[in-house]
């Protein structure tokens, strides 16, 4: 039991994390490039068009993964925020800092592709529909997290304030998820659920699945890289970073 805790504590040490994550980044980056290339070529060129929407349906292969990431990144940040607020683990704060801009970009991408898709399919760029509005709120919550980090004199206070926004902001996630079931909305209900097979044939949903995995790999690569930079910056006065920089120079 004791050794298991030690193993866990190692991962909370920025220095240990820096060494270990450095080895993962190239793998994540290669996986992201490969999966995204396969998914985009497959989805945009080879998957069959939709019987009603034709080729404009293909924006689904970017819209869906962006929307999935927009929500799951925030869920991950909320868990990290709990760790920040209760256990005061520095690394969890670094994760929130690194993940927030990525999540905000994904939310913006989901809103943007949704608008481009909405114009031909629905006849409007934007409608104050529950799903769309809740996603816009999510975008502002991301901006709130990013803003909170810089809003205080000390990094620590800023990190805790941002963590609080993450925990409370996570309450919006079930609203986004269930908005299409709870209210009449313009947005259609979920195509993918855990309880039923996807409401589309395999040659249509497989590229979407590959795209989601590719977006996750990209997220891992970007976040680990950002966390590494932040670790180097925060620990710049320590011996190990000095030695690392001297060794590299």
């Amino acid at each position, binding site marked *: 039991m004791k050794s298991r805790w030690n193993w866990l504590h190692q991962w909370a040490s920025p220095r240990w994390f820096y060494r270990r994550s450095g080895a993962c980044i190239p793998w994540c980056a290669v996986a992201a490039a490969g999966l995204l290339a396969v998914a985009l070529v497959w989805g945009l060129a080879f998957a069959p068009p*939709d019987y009603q*929407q034709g080729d404009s349906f293909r924006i689904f292969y970017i819209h869906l993964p962006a929307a999935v990431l927009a929500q799951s990144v925030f869920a991950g940040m909320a868990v990290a925020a709990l760790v920040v*607020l*209760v*256990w005061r683990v520095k690394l969890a704060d670094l994760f929130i800092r690194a993940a927030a801009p990525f999540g905000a970009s994904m939310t913006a991408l989901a809103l943007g592709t949704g608008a481009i898709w909405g114009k031909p399919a629905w*006849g409007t760029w934007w409608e104050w*529909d529950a799903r769309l509005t809740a996603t816009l709120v999510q975008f502002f919550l991301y901006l709130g997290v990013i803003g909170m980090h810089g809003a205080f004199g000390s990094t620590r206070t800023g990190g805790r304030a941002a963590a609080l926004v993450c925990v409370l902001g996570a309450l919006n996630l079930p609203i986004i998820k269930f908005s299409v079931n709870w*209210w009449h*909305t313009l947005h259609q209900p979920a195509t993918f659920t855990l309880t039923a097979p996807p*409401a589309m044939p395999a040659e249509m949903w497989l590229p979407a699945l590959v795209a989601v995995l590719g977006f996750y790999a990209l997220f891992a690569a970007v976040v680990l890289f950002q966390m590494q930079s932040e670790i180097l910056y925060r620990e710049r006065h320590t011996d190990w970073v000095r030695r690392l920089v001297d060794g590299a120079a």
Partner: protein
Amino acid sequence: MRPVRRRRLLALLGLVVAASLALGLVLYALRQNINLFFTPSQIVAGVVPLNQRLRVGGLVVPGSVERAPDSLAVVFLVTDTAATVPVTFEGILPDLFRPGQGVVAVGRLDAQGTVRAEQVLARHDENYQPPEVQRAIEQARPPDADEY
């Protein structure tokens, strides 16, 4: 768990419970306003005010779409399968507008019970299909099958 951490965890959980309760009450109070559209049943039942901007959502009744020969004016019926409401519109309809398709019409309800739409939006469902699959389904279905 050390007492100080337990205290922080409990405080945080309390905060989350209180915030979800507040949010839940707000959403409950606003539940009618959050709905994007009224259903034809609600309009026929008279819960909808006259001459105010509203949205009505439902399926376009097949065979009900009448286009004017000399303008972009169009009249069609919208149904939720329980009640039906006529909608008039003048303008360009979205590509997905077709009989049997879900639509949301934005406009005003007049005294005759007709919705005078300023904008018509199309809904689509979560089921996507390649064209050949859809053709096969249509061929397999008897012609007098339920059209919704």
